[in-house]
């Protein structure tokens, strides 16, 4: 389940719904990770662009990986502006036992940060400024630059 929302996430509602939807499915562990916008460096908030086709294929690959371990991954992310102290990202893992969920949530969130086609901008003075220094090149980047 990949959910995209315009603006900030309604975290309690999403977590509650996922909990209720998966409760009958005999998972013993439910581990959510919630990303919240912190007040730092004078930002008013963050803003996000998403390229959905590749995000969806990235997510499907993670669903398949989790399923092989008897687990399930879900995520929600914001598109557009999310202000300080609001949340833009929830990733969660459901699994029969805790160990699989604890290990998967780490790998799942880190791979998301490194690979998911989402671009972050600081909102300062109402302007969107690409967070270049905090961004990570996707594996294989620079391919078209090698033939110079």
């Amino acid at each position: 389940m990949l959910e995209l929302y315009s603006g900030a996430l309604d975290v309690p509602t999403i977590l509650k719904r996922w909990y209720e939807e998966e409760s009958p499915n005999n998972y013993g562990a439910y581990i959510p990770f919630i990303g919240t916008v912190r007040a730092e460096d004078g930002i008013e908030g963050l803003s996000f662009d998403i390229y959905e086709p590749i995000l969806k294929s990235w997510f499907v690959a993670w669903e398949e990986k989790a399923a092989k371990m008897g687990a399930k991954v879900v995520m929600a992310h914001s598109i557009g502006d999310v202000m300080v102290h609001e949340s833009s990202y929830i990733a969660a893992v459901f699994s029969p036992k805790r160990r699989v969920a604890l290990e998967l949530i780490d790998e799942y969130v880190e791979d998301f940060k490194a690979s998911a086609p989402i671009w972050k901008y600081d909102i300062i003075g109402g302007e969107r400024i690409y967070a270049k220094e905090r961004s990570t090149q996707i594996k294989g980047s620079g391919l078209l630059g090698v033939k110079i």
Partner: protein
Amino acid sequence: MVRIEFLGPIQRESLEIEAHTLGDVADILNQDQELKEWIATSAVAVNDTLVSSLDVVLKDGDKISLLPPVCGG
């Protein structure tokens, strides 16, 4: 003709160019000095699948996307 799309912060209008391989695309895009910095740090997808070789053979109507460094969450 193939279509080049520049995603996220690159903020360029898409282009249609004549290219038979990604090597041809590289030759053409690298002539644009402003694009060079983005090219050096961007991943490449052909029809929404990330690729890792310049030898990919392109066909008419293919979509090539440039994905600059990411930061979700």
